[in-house]
């Protein structure tokens, strides 16, 4: 589906992502795990075209995405649900959702409206607050809206940056189910960044660990869950803050 080869991304003069290579197959869920500041968001931003990659290539269905604008990348079928939600705060919930399907709305209006109903079905809460301004929702409601908006794009590759952030436990499970369903029904590929590593790996096919901009470990999700160093660093008992 998408294969990333020797990708580097900088912030100013700082190398944040250092020559990373990996791929996500069609209908595959891949998780990225890493500490704060490891560069996870920067990596997703690099693929989405928000940060222009300094080097390397991003191939999708034989097309090079690496130097394309975010808009072109969206049109190619890659959508990012970004960190911090990034809601259009002065627009209503419904307008926010519809704009999620902007790049295809004029062509397939009917389909878009159907998809809107699907999103409402996933998140009944949003349906109940259709005409409220997005910016006035609670944090978790906004997170649902952001995810819903991402779904409205109907991407081939959906990238989610910490989708469970700020969501109640019940909803987190709900989201994970939705992602699995999405993969099963539409064969959407999913690239997932999560702090809730257990939840993420448990629905993923594969995963890799990012550290200071490089991949230090990768493999089947199940084996990663068992991996001792991962357990120590991200899941295990907590060493005290003072070390």
């Amino acid at each position, binding site marked *: 589906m998408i294969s990333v080869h020797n990708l580097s991304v900088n912030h100013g003069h700082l190398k944040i992502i250092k020559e990373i290579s990996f791929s996500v197959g069609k209908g595959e869920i891949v998780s990225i795990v890493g*500490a*704060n500041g490891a560069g996870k968001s920067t990596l997703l931003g690099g693929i989405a075209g928000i940060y222009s990659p300094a080097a390397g290539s991003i191939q999708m269905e034989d097309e090079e995405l690496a130097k394309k604008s975010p808009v072109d990348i969206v049109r190619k079928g890659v959508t990012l649900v970004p960190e911090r939600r990034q809601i259009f705060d002065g627009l209503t919930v419904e307008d926010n959702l519809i704009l999620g399907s902007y790049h295809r709305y004029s062509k397939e209006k009917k389909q878009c409206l159907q998809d809107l109903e699907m999103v409402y079905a996933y998140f009944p809460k949003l349906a109940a607050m259709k005409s409220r301004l997005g910016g006035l929702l609670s944090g*978790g409601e906004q997170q649902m809206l952001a995810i819903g908006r991402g779904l409205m794009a109907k991407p081939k590759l959906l990238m989610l940056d910490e989708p469970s952030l*700020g*969501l109640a436990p019940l909803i987190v499970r709900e989201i994970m189910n939705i992602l699995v369903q999405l993969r099963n029904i539409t064969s959407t590929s999913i690239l997932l960044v999560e702090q809730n590593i*257990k939840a993420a790996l448990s629905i993923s096919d594969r995963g890799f660990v990012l550290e200071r901009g490089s991949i230090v470990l990768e493999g089947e999700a199940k084996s990663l869950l068992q991996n001792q160093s991962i357990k120590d660093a991200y899941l295990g008992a*907590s060493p005290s803050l003072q070390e």
Partner: protein
Amino acid sequence: MNLLEIKNLSKDFGGVQAVQDVTFTIQEGSISALIGPNGAGKTTVFNMITGVFPPSNGTIMLHSKKISNKKPHQIAKEGITRTFQNLQLFADMTVIENIMAGMHLLTKTGVWNAGFRLPSAKREEQYIYDKSMQWLMRLNLDQEAYLPAGTLSYGKQRLVEIARAVISHPKLILLDEPMAGLNHNESEKLADLLLEMKKEGQTFLLVEHDMDIVMRVADHIVVLDHGVKIAEGTPDEIQQNDTVIAAYLGSEVTI
């Protein structure tokens, strides 16, 4: 002793009943948690306590003194600081400046003293610098001290915000989802820190969706749903409470 008393608190946003008739108290030196589904009204309660907007109804008392209807900076002066669910850092200031700003209330140099750099101003500056640096080390942020706060990763920005809120030793600290954006290990470290500070006598009220952490650190939990308080009690009581399980936790407590 009761530090904060909330009585019959309600908030109505032009038809949206965000909080309805909520009553609870916070004990001095405890960690309390406010939990509930998304949109239950937790952040709204925080906003009313800190004076972002006045309650539609009800009273808030700190040490038996009424503080509802005060302005946010007055509330801070009364001794309540907070963090924000949607981060509100001073993005262009360095990390250490962010934290030094947090000591605003503990210091008093005015325009005159500062402008002419009188000795008292210099002394004070050194004092808050030292104290801020200590906190940065405590939170493992000392390496980032001189970076503009806006360029930090999400998780670290959260820590900076927490440091900014705790450094002035307020009577009560409100943390809105402090663990969001931290991974399990980092959350555990932060939880340890909270417990440590509790030992030092600090009182907290936190909103958090990470139930492992809440159950570990909280002495007392209040549960909201649709703006209404549906339960209150110790972590054990809450975990057993059927209403809470149905509305919020689900049958498995942790994932």
